[in-house]
């Protein structure tokens, strides 16, 4: 087997076009990884600077009313993960700034794609683009006539006479081409490690290992499938046409179609409807600024009872702060209901998309690639949830200070000190550990493994039945 692989490589490296293309991909990957890392670092630096800039403004705040400070709010800037340079995923289409303030949950704004004319439909030239679209095509061109050439030159007969089985010959040929792609994959991973060695941890290494495994599975599927067509096809041209047609469908056509179908099967609410139902539900709660109704009365009575006083003015605390927090908590409940529904719809769409990997392994690869790079919808939702959690703590601290920090009901001009504002902890976000997310990607791994096993099985059977001599 090793001899066949080495002979294959010798043959390939004698071919000038192959050599030039391999070199081209090798250099492209180095350049892409380098640029990707530079951009990543710059973006992270800009994110940190922006976060510090905003925090500084908070820390320098003069003594103010805590509720005014809640309106003043703060911002959360989405950081990019270390492996963003490998696969940018959805990061360029989501916004990167989120305003966190009292009474409301805002939308993320300022996505990269909205800041200019359209440039590329397939995204930036990063390792994921090369590995997902270009390298498979390269492998197809290398493998589509590999079997036919052996057959027409009569070399295959020679090998069979020497006692090597057809299956072994085909698997060796597949391995020889697959290992070339693996070499490019390893090169990229090494570059990634070298450029980011200071930031590397166990989780990143684990993610990189999964990145490696996913792509190696996919490359195996591509090479294996091309070999199957080349074995069963009437001629080379037919095999090439069919494989290219599949490549086109897998990489450009089916992902868009499937994602559109998922959108039709599980339709998302429109922003207008979402906002309408949010404000409708919210209006049933306590309006912290203009309180009225049964809920307000119940809260008032409960507070009076708790402090054993008869009038609001006699309370040792500021009832306005308590009201604001009650309003906030009701609003949070409403948000959890509606945003929760939306997230469930998004997750259902994602699940549908993942399942469709059964007909298109490219989808499983894409999901895994984004997932392990920390740039998919699950990671984005995690950031949003983290930011919302922080917003709630942030606003609660301010409302509590307003209620229990020393002011009494009606003291609208009461101000919290600068020390208090500085004491509120900063917003910090660390992308989740992959292990905590692993269940979301099991289906992709299973589907990709299913493809690999199916390809191996099909090759095993067709090479057993194929009559060569």
């Amino acid at each position, binding site marked *: 087997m090793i001899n066949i692989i080495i002979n294959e490589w010798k043959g390939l490296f004698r071919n000038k076009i192959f050599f030039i293309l391999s070199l081209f991909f090798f250099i492209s990957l180095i350049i892409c990884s380098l640029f990707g890392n530079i951009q990543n670092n710059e973006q992270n630096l800009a994110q940190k600077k922006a976060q510090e800039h905003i925090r500084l403004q908070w820390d320098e705040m003069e003594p103010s009313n805590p509720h005014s400070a809640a309106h*003043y709010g703060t911002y959360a800037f989405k950081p990019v993960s270390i492996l963003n340079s490998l696969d940018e995923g959805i990061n360029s289409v989501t916004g990167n700034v989120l305003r966190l303030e009292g009474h409301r949950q805002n939308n993320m704004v300022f996505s*990269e794609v909205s800041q200019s*004319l*359209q*440039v590329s439909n397939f995204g930036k030239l990063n390792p994921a683009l090369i590995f997902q679209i270009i390298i498979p095509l390269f492998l197809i061109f290398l493998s589509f006539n590999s079997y036919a050439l052996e057959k027409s030159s009569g070399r295959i007969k020679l090998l069979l006479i020497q006692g090597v089985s057809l299956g072994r010959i085909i698997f060796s040929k597949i391995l020889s081409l697959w290992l070339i792609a693996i070499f490019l994959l390893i090169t990229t991973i090494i570059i990634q490690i070298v450029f980011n060695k200071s930031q590397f941890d166990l989780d990143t290494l684990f993610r990189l290992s999964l990145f490696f495994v996913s792509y190696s599975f996919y490359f195996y599927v591509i090479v294996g499938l091309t070999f199957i067509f080349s074995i069963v096809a009437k001629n080379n041209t037919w095999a090439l046409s069919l494989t290219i047609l599949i490549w086109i469908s897998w990489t450009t056509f089916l992902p*868009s179609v499937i994602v559109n179908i998922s959108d039709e099967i599980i339709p998302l609410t429109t922003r207008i409807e*979402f906002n309408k139902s949010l404000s409708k539900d919210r209006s049933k709660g306590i309006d912290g600024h203009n309180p009225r109704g049964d809920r307000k009365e119940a809260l008032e009575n409960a507070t009076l009872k708790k402090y054993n006083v008869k009038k609001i003015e006699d309370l040792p605390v500021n009832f306005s702060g308590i009201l604001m927090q009650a309003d906030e908590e009701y609003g949070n409940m409403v948000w959890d209901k509606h945003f929760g529904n939306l997230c469930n719809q998004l997750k259902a769409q994602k699940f549908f998309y993942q399942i469709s990997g059964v007909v298109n392994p490219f989808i499983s690869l894409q999901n895994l690639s984004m997932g392990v790079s920390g740039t998919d919808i699950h990671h984005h939702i995690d950031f949003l949830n983290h930011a919302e959690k922080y917003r709630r703590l942030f606003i609660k601290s301010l409302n509590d200070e307003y209620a229990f920090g020393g002011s009494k009901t009606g003291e609208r001009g009461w101000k919290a000190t600068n020390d208090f504002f500085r004491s509120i902890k900063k917003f910090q976000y660390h992308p989740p550990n992959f292990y905590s997310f692993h269940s979301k990607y099991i289906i992709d791994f299973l589907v990709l493994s299913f493809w690999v096993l199916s390809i191996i099985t099909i090759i095993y059977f067709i090479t057993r039945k194929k009559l060569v001599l």
Partner: protein
Amino acid sequence: MKLLNIIIYELRHFVRSKSKLYSYLFFVFTCCYSIHIGFSLYNSQNSNIKSLQEMENENISQVIKWFKTGEKGPKEKDWVDITDPYWSLRYTPKYVVKNPSPLMPLGLGQSEQYGYHKKITIWSSPYDSDVIEEISNYERFINGNIDFSFLIIFLLPLLVIIFTYNINGLEKDLNFDKLIAVQTGSLKYWVIGRLIFYWIILVSTINIFILSVFYLNNVNINDGFDLIKLSNLYVTVFFIAFYYVIMSSSSSTVIAFKMISIWLFLCVLIPGSVHQYISLKYPPNFMTDFLDANRKETYAVFKLPKEELYRQMLSIYADLDTTKQGLDSLINTKITRNTMSCIVNQINVQAINIIEEQNNFKNNLIRSTYWFNPISYFQNKWNKLTSTDYYAYKDFRDDIQLVTNKKLKILAFECWNERTVNLNLYNEYLKKLHSYNSSPNLEMITYEAIK
């Protein structure tokens, strides 16, 4: 051999070749599907705009009802007095919308990356967080929509490859090429004839689809003619490039390889590299200048003394000195505070200009790459024709700013003139605000209409 004969032979070959015929039918089916998607988005945007307009009209009717019944505003908000211009303008809703172009079903472009409606308040700005894209699955964005422009720009060249890669290639594989040259007189002529057949099929298919959308959406052919020209030019360019590939290659495999490489370079590698380079040169902007204007500087305005507010208001609208408040020797705190959103707006405008300038640098850089990045040129040109490009949405942002400015100017002059609003005056406000009507196809409610 006459050109017509070559075309007829190719037609026979095309009908008999299952792979080509099915690929073509598949393409036609996909075009229908893409136009269906385009129409879905077009209709959904129109229906959302209509519902906004209804909401706007309901709100206006409510205010008109208050005027007619002599109420000052909502019962639960006793501090609201709609006879005060400040409150009546706050209760005069205005939505600015970007109406989808009737050509939108032919290309969604960047439309899904931007918001298309905005409620204008006295604190509005085009970069508010409510001016963002429709709720959608972000993973759909990265795969791109199967819209008609995507099919033409990215998938059609692949269909051309399927149709043409074995022209002259198969003959070379089977060593028939010399025989063909002898039979037809000229190999070039024969190849051109065969290519013309496919060119005619594809160009007519595209044109039929484009004209169907024109018909369905009542688009004047002169308005959409540029789209026909652009698509036909695009297809022609690929045919010319592939002709040279066919003539210079030795076998169908080499032809296929070269054609796919051309597609890969033009559609994936070059735009991807340019995208990466632009991201390096102009990294994603966190827009801290705008955030500062929107928050820090805005809050600083809130803390300004009335004298400073007064001075700044006069620096924005010099004519305010002829108003009642301008001529008064005493500064009215309530009036200056009620109109300070004009100052905040001015701060926002300055910050936004910086953002737009930065985006413009980025766009100029993109445009400067068109000579070696033709796909981006075609894509943006197409998006421009279907009003779904960056600039179509910049115009929308400009409209938001325009209406905000208008509303604030009315606010400033009416408050400083200490006007008491009645139904007629309120109706005047409506007319002034809606003299700019971003959705002319939808009728705006007025007092006369209510009567």
